[in-house]
């Protein structure tokens, strides 16, 4: 099983970057000083899509063995991260950061009831529902772990401009896995809305998210 959609990824990311530059509306940064209004500034942490992109249907299974499809993205802001549980460095680092992001959002006035964090394993070969449950809930009890077959993973990854590659070799217990390190933000209408680029900083992400949610709030739900 070797999955490679890097060309698609590059084309997609280039298109997104060009579109964003043309629109001149890269990033939301808000100045809340009296009399000032929301302004858009270029930002390295979060890139907003000029037009949020509705996602197509998909069929995954979550860590409780329940179906996890497009409808599970409706009504909530979803942070999506691709990875695998045998990942010693990038994945635990990112999940620990996302746990702090969630904590920050939960402490804020608007809370975290309309927010979910979804870890998408690109290694269904090793990441069973049981393994995913042990893994994601360790970082935060509310985190979801999902996975699906290669076709389902490939479709969603393609729509987000993400990429992954699993170099399974017969009889090998350990094998290389590559995956996009970005964190994707899907809005409550199940549209791909923004992407966060590494290296991640919990405060940088949660602050931007809270601003975006406040701006989009009435429109997005």
């Amino acid at each position, binding site marked *: 099983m070797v999955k490679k959609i890097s060309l698609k990824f590059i084309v997609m990311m280039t298109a997104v970057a060009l579109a964003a530059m043309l629109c001149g509306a890269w990033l939301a940064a808000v100045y809340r000083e009296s009399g000032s209004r929301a302004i858009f500034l270029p930002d390295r942490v979060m890139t907003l899509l000029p037009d949020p992109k509705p996602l197509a249907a998909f069929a995954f299974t979550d860590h409780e063995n329940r179906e996890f499809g497009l409808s599970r993205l409706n009504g909530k802001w979803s942070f999506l991260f691709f990875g695998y549980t*045998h990942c*010693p460095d990038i994945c*635990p*680092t990112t999940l620990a950061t996302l746990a702090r992001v969630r904590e920050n959002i939960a402490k804020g006035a608007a809370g975290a009831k309309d927010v979910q964090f979804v870890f998408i394993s690109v290694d269904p070969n090793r990441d069973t529902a049981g*393994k995913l449950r042990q893994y994601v809930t*360790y970082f935060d009890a509310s985190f979801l772990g999902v996975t699906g077959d290669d076709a389902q993973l490939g479709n969603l990854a393609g729509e987000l401009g993400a990429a992954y590659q699993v170099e399974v070799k017969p009889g090998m217990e350990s094998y290389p896995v*590559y995956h996009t*390190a970005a964190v994707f933000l899907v809005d409550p209408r199940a549209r791909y809305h923004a992407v966060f680029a*590494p290296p991640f900083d919990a405060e940088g992400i949660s602050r931007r998210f809270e601003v975006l949610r406040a701006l989009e709030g009435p429109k997005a739900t």
Partner: protein
Amino acid sequence: MRWRHPVLAGLISALIALTAAAEEAGISVRDAWVRETPPGMTMTAGYMVLQNKTSRPHVLVAASSSGFETVTIHRSIAKQGMTGMEHAPQIELLPNASLLFAPGGYHLMLSNPKRALHAGDRVDITLKFRGGLALPVTYEVRK
């Protein structure tokens, strides 16, 4: 070369031993930590700041620990827009320089710990340098 004078020979070998010890003392590690393993998980990573206070370069070639099945020196890398890992067979530590092992970069990949690791535990790992120098380091397990 033959040393006819036993005292001089003794002095020379003592000097060599001292030099070796000094060299060893010249390489040090600070802020050494290992990430706590989530329940049931078999992989984790070790991080540190590796300092070479000597005037010579040193080459880190391996690491070992009785606490894990394998210890490999790895580096997280970007490849075609994706993140992955590659084995770093040797890392040169420049004279009077520090090398950072940190999340997203160089790390010790630790697989199949002999026992579950919990925050506050200590783990011993020996770093091996070219030329036979071995440096035992104690890592603190952190969440």
